[in-house]
């Protein structure tokens, strides 16, 4: 192992670690930036994505929880991984639309503390419903067969194929969303709405539909994150709660509403975490990302790429 190989390995692993943060944070960030809506249920969407992914990809045995008590042995339809990658975002997109329609719209005019409370409550409902029905134990989420095993990369050497897949899928999705926001009329409206929704309405543009779509896209990204992140660790009802906090950190470090900010921040956090683990400071790996977050926010409260405008 040369030094260069070490550095590249850490970077690649950091990319992969950060990829999940990015996927979650991009959605969270556009929802927060555009709709001014604080979604504490974003982790729950990730959770739904992960379990839905499990359901679509394979047969999962049930050994505790209510469904098992009612005599259901396993769940799943075994369509394979590609199917999950396509179906999950579509389903979670619809869930996002429903959330916007029935939850967010009722809370746009209420204080943001109320938004946090209601979405936090929804997250608990989703999490506990899954726990009650499927049991609380961890389920392994098998990697797709075509992406298991290592791949020989130049300089770095053997690298797990699936991790490379995670990086690739994330890159494609984030670039897609970025293109949508940056280069289309829809994106223009969304950006304008972020800056001054009042003015956009005065110009005669209805914002209700773009808002719906933005929430849907954000939710779909969280759903995909669940499918992509599932095979990296086991799936259990707590993973949504665990992912929520780093996702929020990524948003505020990057700057609310800034997609490129979320990418930079996610990669920073991921790389720092991997760096601490690789250099023998594994005990500090979690503390490190929170400390970095606190540091950034104290120096630049609006986030690394955030504008001076205070959105809160």
């Amino acid at each position, binding site marked *: 192992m040369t030094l260069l190989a070490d550095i590249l390995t850490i970077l690649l692993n950091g990319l992969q670690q950060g990829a999940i943060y990015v996927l979650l944070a991009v959605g969270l960030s556009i929802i927060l930036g555009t709709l001014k809506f604080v979604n504490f249920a974003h982790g729950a969407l990730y959770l739904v994505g992960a379990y839905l992914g499990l359901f679509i990809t394979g047969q999962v045995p049930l050994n505790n929880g209510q469904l098992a008590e009612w005599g259901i042995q396993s769940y799943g339809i075994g369509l394979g991984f590609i199917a999950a990658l396509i179906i999950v975002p579509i389903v979670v997109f619809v869930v996002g639309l429903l959330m916007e329609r029935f939850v967010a719209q009722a809370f746009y005019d209420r204080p943001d503390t109320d938004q946090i409370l209601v979405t936090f409550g929804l997250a608990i409902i989703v999490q506990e419903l899954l726990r009650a029905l499927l049991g609380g134990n961890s389920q392994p989420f098998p990697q797709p067969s075509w992406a298991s095993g290592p791949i020989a990369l130049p300089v770095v050497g053997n690298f797990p194929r699936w991790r490379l897949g995670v990086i690739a899928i994330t890159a494609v999705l984030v670039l897609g969303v970025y293109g949508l926001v940056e280069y289309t009329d829809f994106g223009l409206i969304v950006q304008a709405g972020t800056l001054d929704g009042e003015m956009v309405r005065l110009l005669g543009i209805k914002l209700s539909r773009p808002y719906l779509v933005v929430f849907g896209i954000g939710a779909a990204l969280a759903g995909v994150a669940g499918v992509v992140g599932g095979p990296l660790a086991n799936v259990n009802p707590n993973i949504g709660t665990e992912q929520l906090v780093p996702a929020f950190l990524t948003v505020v470090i990057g700057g609310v509403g800034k997609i490129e900010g979320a990418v930079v921040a996610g990669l920073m956090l991921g790389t720092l975490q991997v760096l601490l683990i690789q250099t023998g400071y594994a005990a500090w790996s979690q503390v490190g990302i*929170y400390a970095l977050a606190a540091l950034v926010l104290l120096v630049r409260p609006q986030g690394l790429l955030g504008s001076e405008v205070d959105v809160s």
Partner: protein
Amino acid sequence: MSDEPGDATATAAADAETEVTGGLADRWASFRDREISTVLLTVVGVAVFPFLFNNYLNGYTQLATLVLIYGIFAVGFDILLGYTGLLSFGHAVFFGGAAYAAGIFSASVSSSPLLVLFAGTAFAVLMAWVVGFLSLRRGGIYFAILTLTFGQMSFYLAASPLAFLTNGENGFTSVDIGSLLGVIDIHGGVPFPLSMLVDNMLYVFVAVMTVLSVAMANRILHSPYGTVFRAIRENERRAEFVGLDVWRYKLMAFIISAAFAGIAGSLFAIEGNYVPLESLYWTESGRVVIMTVLGGVGSLFGPLFGAGLYLYIENIVSGFETLGPFWHLILGIVFVVAVVLFPNGIWGGIDYLRDMVVGGEDE
């Protein structure tokens, strides 16, 4: 519930000898507003609570003790959320932090319960000074997310780098609590007249602390200070224009609220002789948020009520045949319904009904 800044003066007037001109309702209102009556109500409440709880609600004394401990936590949290309008998602730092500080203090310095309580609370106040100072730079969601950040940071700190102090994932097991004032065994029984109501000394100790905490909260909220908190919640900018140093008051509200969390956390360590690592995790902060909102923000007794309801569902309902496995789900649903429909919580609802009947004014 209206919250006019005139409240404080109204109470002050009520504290003085009021001319009882009207009927029973007026007399009741003047009685209710006196501080002594609030304290007396609390005393009676904590005295009969375990008796009723154990005999009629399938409760047990240990759970009654926990209800009071979390009640103190929630009352303090409400000073921040209900009166100042700040939603912290990191209050586990002060609860769990105080529990750890109290535990470590009891193991290595002194096992006197009062000193342990003081040490834990002092630690919470110190932490709050730092966390509050850093988190209050931004409003609204940033405050919630920053407190969440510091909360998680402390959790992961306690989990591994500081494991030599905290015993890491196993929780702190060497809590060592001696006798109260050198004579009273805190885990022992109680002498005769009291024993008809309460069956252990620990409950009495926690109950006394609860009464003191409620009295303290009541005093703070009915002072000009409390009026400023409410003014900040109603309209921060206006409070700023009137010439109030809003930032300083917010920090004070944060520290006061953390002190209550510290008292509760220390009592938690004393009660269980053990500090779990989970007491620092952000779901613990979530618990107190739920308790406070369920019971009713912006009222004195609401949070106590919410703590009781939460722990009852968690510990008693979870044992029921059919509902048992769904207890947490039920809690979530009740919570969401409360947020959507009853912004003032259950206690607020009771208040509202009473006002409809007797047409009283609030608080």
